[in-house]
């Protein structure tokens, strides 16, 4: 079997290091069940969303619309529940409606991208504002409260979001790691021409990826509307940044063909721990953005150095030289 290398272990090591640093700096407040539960709760939506959007990343695509689609699906869910008079049946209908909206949005992205060969960046950049606009029209730009029934509000309360994240990640991991479809996603992302000659329908795989991305975004939207107990157009705006960030920190190549679900979840965790650490250490929120940006650069830079063969051979030479120096001494 394949041997584990430093590269494979680097992510758990970083995660443990984060844990240790925060434990040492804030021993009484960090390592408590309540706080760790909070961290997981706060990253659960990113975790759910990245579990689906990873399909798009692996194809070398991007989905910028997931933030505002998260809002639109949340609004859809809340409005349906309200229309059903806050009944459990309404919750089921609301969830179904939100998921349908997510799937349709993904289908539209996939169709436009594969039919007209428009870059995914442009398509989802446009639909990003379309979804926000639709949410605003639907809600009349007002906040729609939805504080009952309990079936709805419990979705956003621990441990449900954490369980949903775990389930989404597990399914996504299974599909990508264990099934034919997963193999095809990596193949298309790695070289679409070679994949097509190997009999893989690049178009089908692409449409599927955007639909999965839309689906998990809808789950994220439902969780978010339950957490906030409201439907609001601007809910979720900007989440695409966190999801992309989670992917990139987790070692997903935005060029496609490379990355894993555990990596993406690791990325989401780092974002959560970072945020939590900044809060616990009372860093003013004005400085959070700066720190987050620096962490991304560090993560991406670290990853690039590991891949860079020149750097690696330089490192190897240095090691050799040092070993030679020692033996000489």
């Amino acid at each position: 079997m394949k041997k584990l290398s430093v590269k494979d272990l680097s992510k758990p090591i970083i995660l443990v290091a984060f844990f240790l640093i925060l434990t040492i700096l804030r021993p009484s407040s960090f390592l408590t069940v309540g706080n760790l539960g909070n961290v997981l709760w706060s990253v659960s939506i990113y975790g759910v969303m990245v579990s689906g959007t990873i399909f798009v990343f692996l194809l070398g695509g991007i989905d910028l619309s997931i933030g505002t689609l998260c809002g639109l699906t949340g609004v859809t869910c809340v409005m349906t529940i309200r229309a059903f008079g806050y009944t459990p049946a309404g919750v089921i209908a609301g969830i179904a409606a939100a998921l349908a909206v997510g799937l349709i949005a993904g289908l539209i992205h996939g169709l436009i991208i594969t039919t007209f060969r428009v870059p995914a960046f442009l398509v989802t950049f446009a639909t990003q504002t379309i979804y926000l606009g639709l949410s605003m029209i639907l809600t009349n730009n007002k906040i729609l409260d939805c504080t009952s029934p309990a079936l709805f509000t419990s979705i956003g309360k621990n441990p449900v979001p954490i369980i949903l994240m775990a389930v989404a990640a597990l399914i996504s991991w299974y599909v990508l790691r264990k099934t034919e479809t997963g193999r095809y996603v990596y193949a298309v992302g790695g070289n679409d021409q070679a994949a097509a000659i190997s009999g893989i329908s690049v178009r089908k795989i692409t449409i599927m990826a955007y639909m999965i991305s839309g689906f998990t975004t809808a789950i994220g939207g439902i969780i978010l509307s339950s957490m906030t107990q409201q439907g609001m157009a601007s809910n979720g705006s900007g989440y695409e940044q966190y999801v992309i960030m989670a992917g990139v920190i987790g070692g997903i190549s935005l060029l496609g063909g490379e990355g894993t679900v555990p990596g993406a979840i690791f990325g989401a965790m780092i974002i959560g721990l970072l945020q939590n650490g900044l809060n616990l250490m009372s860093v003013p929120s004005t400085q959070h953005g700066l720190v987050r940006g620096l962490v991304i650069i560090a993560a991406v830079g670290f990853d690039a150095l590991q891949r860079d063969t020149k750097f690696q051979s330089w490192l190897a030479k240095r090691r050799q030289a040092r070993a030679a120096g020692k033996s000489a001494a």
Partner: protein
Amino acid sequence: MANNEIILEAKNIYKSFSGVPVLQDVHFEVRKGEVHALMGENGAGKSTLIKIITGVYSKDAGSIWWEGKEVQVNSYADVQKLGIACIYQELSVEPPLTVAQNVFLGREPRKFGLIDHRKMIKDTEELIARYGFPLKADELVANLGIGLRQLVEILKGLSCDSKLLIMDEPTASLSGKEAESLFEIIEKLRDQGVSIIYISHRLEEVYRLSDRLTVLRNGQNAAVLNHEQIEPRLVIKTMIGKEVDESAGSAKEMRKNNNEVVLDVKNFSDEIGMFKDVSFQAHRGEILGFGGLIGAGRTELMRAIYGIDKHKSGTATLNGVELKYSPKESIKAGFGFVPEDRRNQGFIPLLSTVKNVALTNYDIVKKNGTSISDKDERDMGIRAIKQIDIRPDNPDKEVGLMSGGNQQKVVLGKWIQRDLKVLIVDEPTAGIDVGAKDQIYSILEDLASQGIVVIIVTSDLQELIRVSHRILVMRKGSIIKEFDSGIVTQSMVLEAGSGIVD
């Protein structure tokens, strides 16, 4: 008109890549106002020589002289300043811009710091009138056909007062009529004192246009011929080299087998005439070679039969059943396809040998429910490594990091796991070392002996003759010659492919 004044001279040029000599003591000169053709087989060193002249590659030894002075060229910009323009096969014109905008791209005439459109149009019109091109200065390039786009490219080169134009296979993608008007323009340019280096595989063009011809063979000067000495058979002999032509690998007896027909292609044509009304049959256990020049339509024909590209009319049947012309369905029916462009179409560089080999074979890899049996997938990869000696034998090695020969073995390896009926291989050994080449030949021979039809498209004549049982030669989209019996030599194939048919 051509006089004897030499404008460009490359003396004693040496170049090698990672120890392999590509050019050895090559001498090349171009006179003022002449069309000088450069010919040679694939790998003879033509493009390397041109890249040294245009500053793309550095030379190991030798000197370049321009108008009697030795010059150092380190980049294409240096060369442009001298007055040399290169017209590449892949055109660099910008379709959304007008002819004038393309011609003056990056050095637009300015007035008060702004682009002076009026002057740009006027200057372009003057140029067009001077050389008599059928172009309009304010026409959008997007509206022009490929032939006229090439003229825009040439005009761009001429607008920098170029004294020497280098044209690399300029007619490769032109229709007969477009090519004819290009020839007229080339002759007109020559009459105005412009020198032209003309690189082509097409003998009749060279014969028609060139004042002189330099032939390279194996990185060395084979001959410089004057127009009256350019005799097609002599040129071919010079390109191939007598001693090679008489050696064992370059002549072989063809033998048509009388097994049943497996693949039957009838009247195959595409939309744009890359192949026209092509019919052929392939028999069980046969290695059928497709010879011809680059651009003869062989690759396009194979891609259409397999179903990557569309065709307009005609049918292809496998054991009597018509194909569905999609890669997925063709694979199901028993096809395998090794594409011409290995790096971009052959394999997934980031994935391991195991996953590349398994890619077309998930219908035969064992599964538990929906999940792939990792062990079975891996066993298949290991089997392929053993079957065809893929190195390194680490099944987890990323294929992108392997050598060309082993990458190609991985591409082949995925097909030989299947119950194949037809395997199409397009330029299977391009850029592959000699040892791996031999291994690939024996794989192909082995497959044929199992009854599989192997169709090989190759521009390497020696390879074509060595591997094929029967050879079809294509030219300008049609099969023009079949060699199915008797001794065939490289010259015979090249003559047929160049249009010198008995």
